């Protein structure tokens, strides 16, 4: 049994002078006490997943800028090459692949070897339906719709300890994402400030109501309501103490004023509060670029800028916590190699993803991608899937969270993990 004082000292909770009834929240004390690994001073590691809904054009994000087949397939829809001396050229990563200039915030991470890119990642199921492909990626079972749980919820069940808190798995979204469906505790909340009684339109703290509710839930006969009620009030007080509304990021860090920027800022808040976060999720929208997606400017450029700036701000904001965190993006499929008749791209197969962290085998574009000659394409039109998304997700979950039970994490899969993490 770890003493509360030891916990407080080690956890950073002391930093904001906890004045909670009875000291620290019971769920945290219990979490520490039941931590089977007995490393009470050790902060939890956190895997942060960002779902880019709508299917990102991976070949525009990370471009094969020397590939003549690609140049032919995209007469107007491609970025200026490095050599042309134009403004906003692609950022040369390795002589073959170039990063979209909107993502220049990623460049230093790539150069430092913290950012890995997997090109050609996707699902073995060739559906080009957003719904089906997202569903399959989030359930983690690309050929089975009936899987009731999501892969991240199963990941929570595989963390290897019972020290779960209300904040072990948090999705910064208004509804629970498919990835979080399942029996393990998980929480969806769009805004941490809503984690309060009467948050809106009422300046006065709901003193009487709050105390009344606390009293009633404390005595509730149904244990589910009693215990959850207790955790709710403790979690609420914890967030109030931390003054979530007035969070100040690390010096010089500016999050984009976007939905994703907001979500990433709040994930950073939770991490710094040491409330037990281990799996975080949020999403980014607007990737379904059938019309005029633009090149170094326009819809797609705005989206990648938001994505990379949000992640970069998050990373810098983490400061001393960087060792604990890995960020991974995902998207349901990629887009056609050829541009379509309306300045956009249609639904394709493989895309790319980004993995950021100090345990990442970074500074590389992973994947086994051939030139985009038509005979190398799937159905003569799409970048083929050369890396199964499960081989990447499982590698990250294993290296970062020590989740090695792939039978449970991805039940229908028996492939090899991708070498995207340092061994």
């Amino acid at each position, binding site marked *: 049994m770890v003493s509360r004082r030891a916990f407080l000292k080690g956890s950073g909770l002391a930093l904001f002078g906890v004045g909670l009834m009875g000291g620290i929240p019971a769920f945290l004390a219990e979490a520490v006490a039941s931590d089977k690994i007995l490393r009470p001073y050790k902060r939890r590691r956190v895997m942060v997943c960002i779902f880019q809904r709508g299917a990102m054009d991976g070949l525009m994000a990370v471009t094969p800028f020397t590939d003549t087949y690609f140049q032919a397939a995209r007469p107007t829809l491609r970025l200026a090459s490095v050599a042309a001396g134009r403004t906003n050229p692609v950022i040369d990563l390795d002589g073959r692949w170039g990063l979209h200039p909107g993502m220049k915030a990623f460049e230093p991470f790539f150069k430092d070897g913290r950012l890995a890119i997997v090109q050609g990642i996707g699902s073995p199921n060739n559906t080009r339906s957003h719904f089906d492909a997202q569903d399959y990626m989030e359930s983690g079972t690309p050929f089975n719709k009936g899987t009731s749980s999501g892969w991240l919820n199963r990941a929570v069940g595989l963390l290897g300890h019972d020290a779960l808190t209300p904040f072990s798995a948090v999705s910064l979204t208004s509804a629970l994402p*498919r990835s979080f469906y399942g029996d393990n505790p998980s929480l969806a909340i769009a805004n941490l400030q809503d984690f309060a009684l009467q948050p809106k339109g009422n300046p*006065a703290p709901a003193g009487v109501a709050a105390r009344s509710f606390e009293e009633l839930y404390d005595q509730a006969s149904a244990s589910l309501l009693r215990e959850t009620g207790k955790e709710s009030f403790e979690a609420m007080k914890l967030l109030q103490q931390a003054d979530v509304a007035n969070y100040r990021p690390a010096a010089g860090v500016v999050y984009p004023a976007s939905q994703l920027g907001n979500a990433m800022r709040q994930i950073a808040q939770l991490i710094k509060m040491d409330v037990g976060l281990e799996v975080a999720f949020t999403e980014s929208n607007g990737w379904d670029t059938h019309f005029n997606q633009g090149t170094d400017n326009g819809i797609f450029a705005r989206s990648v800028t938001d994505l990379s700036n949000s992640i970069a701000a998050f990373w810098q904001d983490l400061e001393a916590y960087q060792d604990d965190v890995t960020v991974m993006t995902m998207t349901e499929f990629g887009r056609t190699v050829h541009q379509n008749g309306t300045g956009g791209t249609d639904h394709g197969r493989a895309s790319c993803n980004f993995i950021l962290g100090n345990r990442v085998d970074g500074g590389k574009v992973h994947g086994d991608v051939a030139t985009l000659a038509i005979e190398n394409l799937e159905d003569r039109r799409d970048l083929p899937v050369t890396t199964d998304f499960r081989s990447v997700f499982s590698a990250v979950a294993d290296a970062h969270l020590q989740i090695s039970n792939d039978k449970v994490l991805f039940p229908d899969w028996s492939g090899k993990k991708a070498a995207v993490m340092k061994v």
Partner: protein
Amino acid sequence: MSGTQVGPALRFPWRQAGLTERQAAAHLLSRFTYGAMPGQVDAVVKMGLENWFAQQLAAQDPDDSLEQILSRYDALELSNEQVAETYPRNGQVIRMAIRDGVVDKDSVKADRVAYRQVIRQYMEEKGYKRQQELFRQFFCQKILRAAYSENQLQEVMTDFWFNHFNVSLTKNDCAEFIPAYERDVIRPNALGRFNELLLKTAKSPAMLYYLDNFSSSGPARDTAQKRARGLNENYAREVMELHTLGVDGGYSQQDVTEAARVLTGWGVRLREDGDFFFNANRHDQGEKVVMGRVFPAGGGYEEGVDLLNMLAHHPSTAKFICHKIAVRFVNDDPPATLVDKMANTFLEKNGDIRQVLITMVSAPEFWSAGALREKTKSPFELAIGAVRSLHATIDQPMQLYNWVTRMGEREYYYQAPTGFPDKGAYWINTGSLLSRMNFGLALAAGRIPGVRVDLLALNHGHEPENARAALLIYGHLILPERNLDATVKRLTPMLNERDSTMTTPAVEGDPMLAQVVGIIIGSPEYQRR
């Protein structure tokens, strides 16, 4: 509706369970309505519990005032064909606008404001409306029906079967067909026969698109057909696993594949007289064997009907469906003895849903201590129940829809074909519980726009003298037949503080009263039914 005779001989064994008649009526209302309205326990007692239930099973009560309210919504009666013509998807509108030369395909990024203006004008000229408006009306009708329909059991069962045969607005391909799916397929059959419900869901555009069966076809006869052809097993798998037999219901992967072959060629063609279309050219003509039953070559459409009937009447289906019904109406882990009785009825009475419900309510297990107040209200049940408890008037339902979403149940958007899990542990977590408390406070204080409450009217205009009196009076109105002694004792000292942090209601009224009522609705006792 297939009008089966309910029979006069209903008899509910509540007395044997040690309940008073009023307690039994309260229990009945908690299970087969969206919540008792003030005075409704008395009304049911007066009518007789069995008579009330028989009337709910018949689902023929006039609903004139509800229909009056619903007539304000102009999209509710549209056929799928009319929906497709009036509410095109966003992407379709842009494509049509480009085709018609209204917008230049390169202009999309240039000036977004001007571009949106052009699209809006184009839609107006063409008579197109935004798809979101169709869905808004659809959400509103669900809330209004649940709150105000006299035929409450039919609404509860509509919700149950929709969730059982779940389709989701998250999937664009099927979204526009979902309003008609609930209206034409689910609601009219919610108290009918299971096999009819199953067949009608199988043939509906919503399900055909949601689980991809529209795309499933027999083998290609030449290479030209190759890209558009192929077997898709999604529907065949889920119809066995989730709609009928259950995951351990005794079928193999081979049976799934064979069933998928049986169901090839089932497609959609939107027309006035029905949207289902059997395309013989896409049907696999060969012989199939599903769970030992041979479907000879050339069976066509009829063999699909035979297959679904076979699944609907299978003993595994009887067990699976009856267990699920018992979970909804009894408790999260219903006794096997009860499920067996219900399953026997299901098999004997040819999947007659009314008869199954009668067997359930006639069983002692339904009235036992293990059933009373054992269900946790879903967010929707909580919100609608509170509206009914307070006799609230809904002018604009969307804010209620948004509250239900915030509490963890975004109606019609559950992505997986399993539907929402029907268990307390799914609904109750730290975030959703605080939202429930906030909902209670907001509703009682009149701070939910579009929903009016008149708390004093509930007490015939009499203002309670103090917080304790308010708690007693409104506690018994809102939570009929519950023992509230402990609650009153605990809360009285706190409520008497009347401190400066008291809620200020948006409407005229007593803040103390609004606070007390809000606390009752957010209380643990009110979360259960």
